[in-house]
């Protein structure tokens, strides 16, 4: 089919509007702020770094805010998707590719070559961009900046400024406003400020580990690493309390909240990755792949990552536990047996309570479970003191950190926003999302309710689903959307022109309700066909 609707054949600009004066000024100011950072990268030694950093960060903030105001300020409240598919930045045009390549490059430097942006080597002092951020870091934690401090600062500013943009865009929608304020808060307080302040408490005799409280294992994949656990234990009661909180987060807090609200409480209200996706990434949500093929890939990849991290973490803990029962109650073997018993109970419970819902998926679940159990047995027989199977524990873990923590969640997950959409990591890679997703699918009150027969199959919901869920395929069957991947951002509901979708927490009965014939037709016919 010829596709001439999408390409502009016109001499005029098909985008809805050229930039307003306000947007142009905003762009100038924002780019000036970025320019200062760029100059620092070329080792321009700014005399008063604190001042220049302040100018830079404030300019970036002011630039984004002015641009947003120019974009939405004078418009009537409502959905603001005009021209999304004709603007270069949001439709994989030249600007989209440029942004994608720049971001990817930034992540590669950040993760693998931090010295290029000025990280101090062997006791020297920082240079370049990192030196520019030293004054702010000293104010907060008392220490010089690292590449992670630079990253954290820019990340937080991105969430805050684009959060304001998002709130403006959805100023008719309180669900979006409140959840955006929530991610802005959790990023600023929990991910950025609190860990810096915690670092301030450190002295020669007392040292807290770096800990973002809302970052739950397995998203926080280094939580149970030997050095980290050691530093928790060394920090006395406070450290122990933090460690216990970390464990409770996984096994108690998370399941309860997910049962009540769905995984959205985390993924689109608290999580930092989600926070960036929902704010700075909002312009790219329509780029996610909606095909069934992509869904199949997604399920294999994300669950493989989950199996990987479960095995790797088990192996890591196994590697630093002892064998001597007189010293520690938790020995290598008790631990392995404990993990096996826990997983077997979990799998058995799912199988028993939910087997009628699972069908084919159960086989995949069984495969994953089997892989882990076999791995545990192999661990027992093959691993020596410091090994996972035949590999060194630290090697396996650093492979995970490299492949998943750096390449997948950073370089691909964020760098490819403008190409693959803003939730590639959350959808394809995040093991935390995989766990929450299973809970959401099987043991949760959350669903997106479809409003009777009102769907007109327009496709706005599917287009704007960042997780690549074909929302319409459910809505047009009058079926509620109960999907493990749904992060509950609520945009499908907002963009629906006919009021068909509502995010709800409700009773289990009727949560999943496929219909052949929709509400509005002959009652007898509906009864005849819909009752199986």
């Amino acid at each position, binding site marked *: *089919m010829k596709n*001439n*609707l*999408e390409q502009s*054949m*016109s*001499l*005029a600009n*098909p*985008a*809805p*509007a050229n930039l307003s004066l306000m947007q142009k000024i905003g762009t100038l100011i924002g780019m000036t702020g970025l320019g200062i950072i760029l100059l620092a990268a070329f080792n321009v030694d700014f005399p008063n770094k604190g001042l220049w950093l302040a100018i830079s960060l404030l300019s970036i903030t002011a630039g984004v805010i002015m641009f947003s105001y120019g974009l939405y300020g004078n418009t*009537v409240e*409502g*959905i603001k*998707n*005009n*021209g*999304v*598919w*004709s*603007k270069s930045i949001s439709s994989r045009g030249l600007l989209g590719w440029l942004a994608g390549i720049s971001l990817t490059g930034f992540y590669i430097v950040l993760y693998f070559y931090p010295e290029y942006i000025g990280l101090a080597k062997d006791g020297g002092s920082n240079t370049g961009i990192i030196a520019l951020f030293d004054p702010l870091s000293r104010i907060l934690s008392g220490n010089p900046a690292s590449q992670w401090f630079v990253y954290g600062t820019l990340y937080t500013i991105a969430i805050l400024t684009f959060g304001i943009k998002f709130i403006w865009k959805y100023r*008719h*929608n*309180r*669900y979006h406003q*409140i959840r955006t304020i929530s991610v802005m808060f959790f990023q600023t307080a929990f991910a950025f400020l609190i860990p810096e302040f915690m670092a301030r408490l450190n002295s020669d005799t007392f040292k807290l580990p770096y800990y973002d409280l809302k970052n739950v294992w397995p998203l926080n994949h280094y939580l149970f690493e030997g050095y980290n656990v050691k530093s928790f234990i060394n920090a006395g009661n406070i450290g122990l309390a933090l460690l216990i909180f970390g464990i409770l987060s996984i096994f108690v807090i998370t399941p309860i909240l997910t049962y009540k609200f769905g995984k959205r409480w985390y993924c689109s209200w608290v999580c930092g990755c989600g926070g960036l996706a929902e704010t700075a990434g909002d312009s790219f949500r329509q780029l996610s792949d909606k*095909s*069934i093929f992509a869904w199949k890939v997604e399920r294999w990849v994300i669950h493989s990552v989950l199996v990987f991290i479960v095995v790797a973490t088990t192996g890591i803990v196994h590697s630093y536990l002892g064998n001597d029962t007189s010293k520690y109650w938790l020995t290598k073997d008790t631990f392995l047996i404990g993990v096996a018993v826990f997983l077997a109970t979990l799998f058995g419970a799912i199988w028993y309570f939910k087997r009628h819902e699972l069908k084919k998926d159960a086989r995949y679940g069984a495969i994953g479970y089997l892989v882990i159990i076999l791995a545990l047995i192999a661990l027992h027989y093959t691993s020596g003191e410091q090994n996972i199977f035949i590999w060194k524990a630290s090697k396996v873990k650093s492979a995970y950190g490299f492949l998943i923590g750096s390449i997948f969640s950073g370089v691909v997950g964020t760098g490819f926003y403008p190409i693959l959409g803003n939730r590639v990591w959350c959808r394809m890679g995040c093991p935390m999302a995989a766990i929450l997703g299973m809970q959401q699918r099987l043991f949760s009150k959350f669903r997106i309710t479809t*409003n*009777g*027969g*009102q769907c*007109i*199959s*327009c*496709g*706005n919901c599917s*287009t704007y689903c960042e997780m690549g869920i074909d929302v*319409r*395929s459910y809505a*047009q069957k009058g079926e509620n959307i109960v999907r493990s991947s749904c992060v509950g951002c*609520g945009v499908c*509901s*907002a963009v629906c*022109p*006919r*009021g068909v979708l*509502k*995010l*709800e927490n409700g009773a289990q009965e009727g949560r999943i309700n496929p219909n*052949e014939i*929709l*509400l*509005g*037709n*002959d*009652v*007898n*016919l509906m009864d005849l066909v819909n009752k199986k």
Partner: protein
Amino acid sequence: MEHIVIIGNGISGVTTARHIRKLSDKKITIVSAETDYFFSRTALMYVYMGHMKFEHTQPYENWFWKKNRINLKNGYVTAVDTDNKELKFADNSTMSYDKLVIATGSKPNKFGWPGQDLDGVMGMYHRQDLENLEKCTPGTKRAVIVGGGLIGIELAEMLSSRNIPVTFLVRESSFWNGVLPAGESDMINRHIREHHIDLRLSTNLKEIQADENGRAKAVVIEETGEVIECQIVGLTAGVSPNIDFLKDSKIEINRGVLVNRHLETNIHDVYAIGDCAQQHEAIGLRRPIEAVWYTGRMMGETLAQTICGNKTEYKPGHWFNSAKFLDIEYQTYGWVFSKPMEYEKQFYWEHEDGKKCIRISYHKDTKEFLGINNFGIRMRHEIFDKWLTEKRDIDYVINHLKEANFDPEFFKQHEAEILQHYNSQLVTNA
């Protein structure tokens, strides 16, 4: 194997095909000259506005049709020979059928205005209209839309989204007031103007003037003789059944293809559904021709049963519909008439921001709940369907309105205010 041929790949035809496939192994062919694959017609506007690409309006991926053994034929049917059960196409090829379903939808109305066939003058119904509009957009300094209905306001929104100034000529004294009561209609008037659309009420088109290249350059207003320069003229004065190709056939037609309650035409094995079907006698308070997405779908669901041996009457349930006027969403359940029936009384509440309102219609003697219009507040289809079936009275409905609320979480709720307004009206009326 029985061959079912469906002319038209819109919601009616495609729903029929899908359900026939679920129920049987019959050979199914869908014929369309408009597009290769089914798309949502109601979403065309979003393609022009840049919200979606055309492919996003297609509810099924392209492999779906082959997998479900539904043949797609791109062709334009010019004649139907019911004696020989054969279709004739524009390229002179033919196709035979065992059962024929006519689901050809609508075409935009034209009322013989001078200049109505000039370049730059278009309806907004088919995919080809969208391509035409895209072609005419560059260089357009103003567009004039003639006809104040659902398609008219959508076209106004589309053009506005590209910053093209729009003059909107509406014959009626208030927008869509044949369907909407005064309060709602006036709310939409205000909202149209809030979007800087030049709304002209009680205004008719006299003629469209051409430039030397045969392209529209201006319209002339009937009442004032005013000449409005424009490069695009949208004709959106309603639609009528798209059945010209049946004029020489033996199939009985009036404005649409005449069908009985089983959606059968006068010819055995020929059926008609969707926008192009016309009931011999209207069903309940419905119109004999209903050009609505939902009714098309319901007819498709019903007809598939009949074709597969479970002869089923078309019995739509309670009336419902929805639309979106620029930024204001509209839903309706049951019947609310713009000019109340003699048995009908209405309760109206409007929010102070002037963008939300509800109107509940009830029987003046029995107080039975008859229907609701809701603007800017989403309501549950299921609940109103139930209340209509249970013949609840208006007091019950007003007091339980919260159960029907379908707005997103954290939205301001207005039920208390509505109840208060209702009670105060009772006092003043007593």
